[in-house]
């Protein structure tokens, strides 16, 4: 591991470093993965407190702001003497109607300026349902002036705020779904790899079968079976269960591979000769030695879950409005006429792509860093 020697020039430090320290040192060298880590952390911070980053109430409709175009945020302004100084503001838009078609026409009023304040006050929201506040990252100084950074949709709802709110559902579906499939995968893969023989054969055939099935038709059929009038939380839970039903096979295969290769290692044989129980061998000796691998596989499985939820909701069989997820938001962009009038409805898709890419980079870096034989 040449990278680690560069970081830890002191060989003594390297010799006593724990496995996690070694992984962290190798990981830090991977620039794309570090960038991925930063983006992923940022996304999960948004997922915890979406209300703080939102500008408008994501559920609020505004008939006078249908298809409101995105507003540009200006950061610098000129004073009378002609010097630039920092002052975030926006130009408000004026709504007119086309006399013939009555379609809304928005024109920028560049003579007026509305200040945007950091940590200003806006609508009330609750943080994880624990306490309420109305402080936002930024807010307009005149409450009656709308601020639509990424425009508004058909019903005049703020696209930016809805993307922030959707982060919570979209990213947590991935996390919850992966942990469910991990639970199935670790149990089945562990049994398969540890015992071997006939059990292994049977479980492996099941895994191969699960992997050879196309997932979308099965998800569609399962999701279509869910009653549409279930409460949002039940629906959310069922969707994650459906997604993990097909996601476990890949993880089971990874876990089995690690168990098979570790089973004959000296330290496992030593533990067995010492009279350690099977549970102790598995959980105390084997599991920690491939924990980092499992974490890398999980990271690589989350983006697949996010894409799956997005696709299902987009087709109208996943989460249902008023629940907000990126897939639900993309349904607004489903027909060619609405995206022709409001191309900014694609922004939730941009969020999906960035989140998935960051998670892929992070997972790739983790996998490389967790491999002790990687040069």
């Amino acid at each position, binding site marked *: 591991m040449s990278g680690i020697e560069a970081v830890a020039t002191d060989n003594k430090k390297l010799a006593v470093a724990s496995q996690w320290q070694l992984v962290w040192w190798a990981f830090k060298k991977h620039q794309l993965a570090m960038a991925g880590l930063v983006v992923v952390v940022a996304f999960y911070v948004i997922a915890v407190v979406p209300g703080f980053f939102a500008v408008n109430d994501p559920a609020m409709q505004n008939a006078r702001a249908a298809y409101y175009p995105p507003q540009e945020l200006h950061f610098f302004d000129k004073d009378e003497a002609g010097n630039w100084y920092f002052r975030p503001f926006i130009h408000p838009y004026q709504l007119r109607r086309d006399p013939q078609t009555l379609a809304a026409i928005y024109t920028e009023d560049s003579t007026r300026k509305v200040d945007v304040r950091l940590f200003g006050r806006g609508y009330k929201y609750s943080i994880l349902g624990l306490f309420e506040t109305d402080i936002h990252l930024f807010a307009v100084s005149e409450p009656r002036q709308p601020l639509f950074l990424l425009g508004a949709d058909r019903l005049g709802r703020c696209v930016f705020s809805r993307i922030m709110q959707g982060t919570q559902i979209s990213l947590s579906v991935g996390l919850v779904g992966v942990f469910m499939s991990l639970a199935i995968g670790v149990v089945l893969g562990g049994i398969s790899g540890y015992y071997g023989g006939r059990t292994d054969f049977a479980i492996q*055939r099941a895994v191969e*079968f699960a*992997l*050879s*099935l*196309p*997932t*979308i*038709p*099965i998800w*569609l*059929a*399962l999701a*279509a*079976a869910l*009653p549409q009038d279930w409460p949002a939380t039940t629906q959310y839970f069922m969707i994650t269960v459906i997604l993990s039903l097909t996601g476990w096979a890949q993880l089971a295969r990874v876990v089995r591979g690690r168990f098979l290769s570790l089973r004959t290692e000296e330290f496992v044989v030593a533990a067995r000769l010492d009279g350690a129980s099977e549970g102790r061998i598995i959980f105390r000796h084997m599991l920690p030695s491939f924990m980092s691998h499992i974490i890398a596989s999980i990271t690589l499985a989350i*983006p697949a879950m996010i*894409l799956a939820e*997005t*696709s299902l909701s*987009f*087709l109208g*069989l996943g989460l249902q409005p008023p629940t907000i997820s990126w897939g639900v938001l*993309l349904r607004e*962009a*489903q027909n*060619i006429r609405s*995206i*022709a009038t409001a*191309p900014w409805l*694609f922004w939730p*898709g941009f969020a*999906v*792509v*960035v989140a*998935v*890419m960051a998670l*892929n*980079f992070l997972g790739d870096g983790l996998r490389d860093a967790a491999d002790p034989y990687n040069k």
Partner: protein
Amino acid sequence: MLRFIVVRLMWMIPSLIAVSFLAFVLIQLPPGDFVTTYIATLAASNELVDQNTAAELRARFGLDQPMMIQYLKWISGILLEGNFGLSFEWQQPVSELIWERMALTLVLTLSTLLATWGIALPIGVFSAVKKYSIGDYVATFFSFLGLAIPSFLLALVLMYVAAVKLGQDVGGLFSEKFVNSPWSFDKILDLVAHLWVPVIILAVSGTASLIRVMRANMLDELNKPYVTTARAKGLSEFALLIKYPVRVALNPFISTIAWLLPNLVSGSIIVAIVLSLPTAGPMLLQSLMSQDMYLAGAFVLLICALTLVGSLVSDVLLALVDPRIRLE
């Protein structure tokens, strides 16, 4: 070799039975049945159906029997007479509705498979040979991007660009005048002219992962002594690459059919719905929404069977190419 194929074929049987049962259970899952949906639709237009008529309808479609009997009737009809049952919604035998759509799905999937290989192979070889060059970085970046973009989003963006910037409609697989016409040479040409849009959209994500597989395989081979020997003999760099390392690196390529095919089929369903292609996707979605169970079941069954056959083909091909696998 023959033994390998026979054993592999025998393994298909339990898988197919499992798939058929799965398909049937899936379509049985929704609460209520087609008659419930049918009555609800009639009630929406102020037509009332009494209990007796409903029971009569159920008896006629065989919906009042236990599930196992319904399954056995269904599967034996398919195996013995090729009869997939009746579509409640279309009031037509399912087999009349699905074959053309399944054939078009197959055409779409296979063309995508070929396109994926055609794009991924040269790019993968290139980025392995010119490792850490600008071209390699560009290819790596795009393959990550390709993995991250959901195919339906790509379809939407392409539709937007075509409609707004170019003023064209990219949906569908045929021009208007060919949609209902019988098959002819002109119609096939028309299909080819329309097919490339969904093929490209679908090929993107598969290409992305294949480029990385190909690159890794090539990098393993390029440093081996036989490559140096060939170079020392004075072979041109191009002939050398094609003749030795690419051939060896191709081996794992064949095995990708097994995992690429389920992904392609899944992706093609969503893209077909967005672009409203006359393939299995839109009709499957529609039949699931209206609980037209025999139609949906036939689609799920055929699509799953198709991918199982695909993985069988890839196993056999792999055994043909690589003798080590046969002997295992």
